[in-house]
């Protein structure tokens, strides 16, 4: 205690660093957050038209509430700003082309027509312009609402694959980006 007193006295007596007359932390802090889920596609045969195969068989539920974990619960506002797709573990033949629909709560989010999975070997935003790739605004609206108001069971997502011209083996990563504003002090 005595040593600390001396140090403190020396600190404040000889060197005063302060920002006085100012307010710190008056505006909310904006934290970027993301959640990532994946769907594994192991289709060993060609899917002829007009057939489709769901992946996963039972829909995936994305818990959008976990976006708020960055704040420890101190949330003022949540907003969506991006969603990306990325493929890895891709052993689909190079000439393989796939057609399909990624669904959000049973509404088409993106539709893919005759695309090679390798197009998404690097992360791409769903807002990018890619030949054979189409974003559906109705599905996007569902994702936006799920981020702002997380549904209790999570956001239901499922990929319907078909037709294809070859077997398809890859893992599709779906990543949702949000901004969380903390409560100002």
């Amino acid at each position: 205690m005595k040593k600390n007193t001396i140090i403190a006295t020396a600190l404040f007596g000889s060197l005063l660093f302060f920002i006085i007359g100012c307010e710190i932390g008056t505006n909310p802090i904006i934290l970027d957050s993301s959640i990532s889920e994946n769907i594994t596609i192991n289709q060993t045969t060609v899917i002829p038209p007009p057939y489709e195969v769901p992946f996963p068989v039972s829909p995936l539920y994305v818990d959008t509430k976990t976006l708020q974990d960055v704040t420890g619960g101190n949330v003022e506002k949540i907003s969506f700003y991006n969603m990306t797709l990325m493929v890895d573990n891709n052993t689909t033949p190079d000439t393989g082309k796939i057609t399909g629909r990624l669904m959000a709560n049973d509404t088409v989010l993106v539709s893919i027509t005759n695309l090679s999975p390798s197009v998404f070997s690097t992360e791409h935003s769903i807002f990018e312009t890619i030949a054979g790739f189409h974003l559906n605004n109705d599905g996007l609206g569902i994702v936006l609402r799920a981020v702002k108001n997380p549904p209790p069971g999570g956001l239901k997502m499922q990929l319907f694959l078909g037709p294809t011209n070859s077997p398809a083996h890859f893992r599709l990563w779906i990543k949702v980006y949000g901004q969380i504003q903390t409560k100002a002090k």
Partner: protein
Amino acid sequence: MSKIFNTRLYGIVLTLLAFIFSNAQAQSPIEDAVKQLTSDNAKGYLQPLATSFGANLNSGMYHSASIGEMGFSCRFDIVGMATSIGSAEKKYNAIAPLPFSQEPVETATLFGGLGTVVDGPVPGVEYQFQNGQVKTDYILFAAPQLTIGDVYYSQVVIRYVPVPKIGDFPKTTLFGFGARHNVSHYFPFVPLDVAANIYYQTFKIGDLLNAKSFSFGAEASKSFSVLTLYGGLQYESSSMDVSYEYQGQYGPSMGTKINLSMDGKNNFRFIAGANINLFVLNLFADVNIGSMTMFSGGIGFGF
């Protein structure tokens, strides 16, 4: 009692040193805000802090140009400095992450208001830049200063404060060294005292922050009984290096250690001030005009 004292001391110093980025016991909002920024955006966001801190370091070095040929003079000052934070210091140009437009957008610095909101590629999708976190009109600083002379019309100026590691608060050191030389004695017809000066300072907080400043210039003064009026012109430079662990979602991987180096924007100033000599007690204040407006003042003891 000791634990409470340490906690309070730490809390005060952490609040005071709002630009520390560390594994502190209490996360500061400034630290949380900066950790979300890529290096380019963080530079713009923090630039006014680097500039104002450097400007403060380069303030308050002298209060008279009168230096004797030979004799003993010793003066201990507590110098307070203040740099104004104007509207120019509250905004900078930042770039939003993809898929948003990569055109620079004017938004809030650390000292600004709310961050700008940019529209996304479709209605309903938007991105908001980081909000400002410090609301203030001035950045204040203070330091002890020892001036010793006179040897052949010269004096040395020292600023030195070593603060040991206290709990989780890292070792902090302020060190400054300068010299002043009276040149008017070469020109007896000059009715003023005129001196030249040069200073160098460093300020370190552990491995987290390293600030440096350098200045040189000329000063002139005239005494009227107990009152001395002084002024000067000064060229200066400053830099601030900070480190933080990136916690954002675009750009580098989360957890990447980012090292920033920022140069202060103030390179030149004009100084005008007054010192009142009450035997061994001196009171002084001056105004400094450069790219920002700065003030210094304080109290000194000595002769």
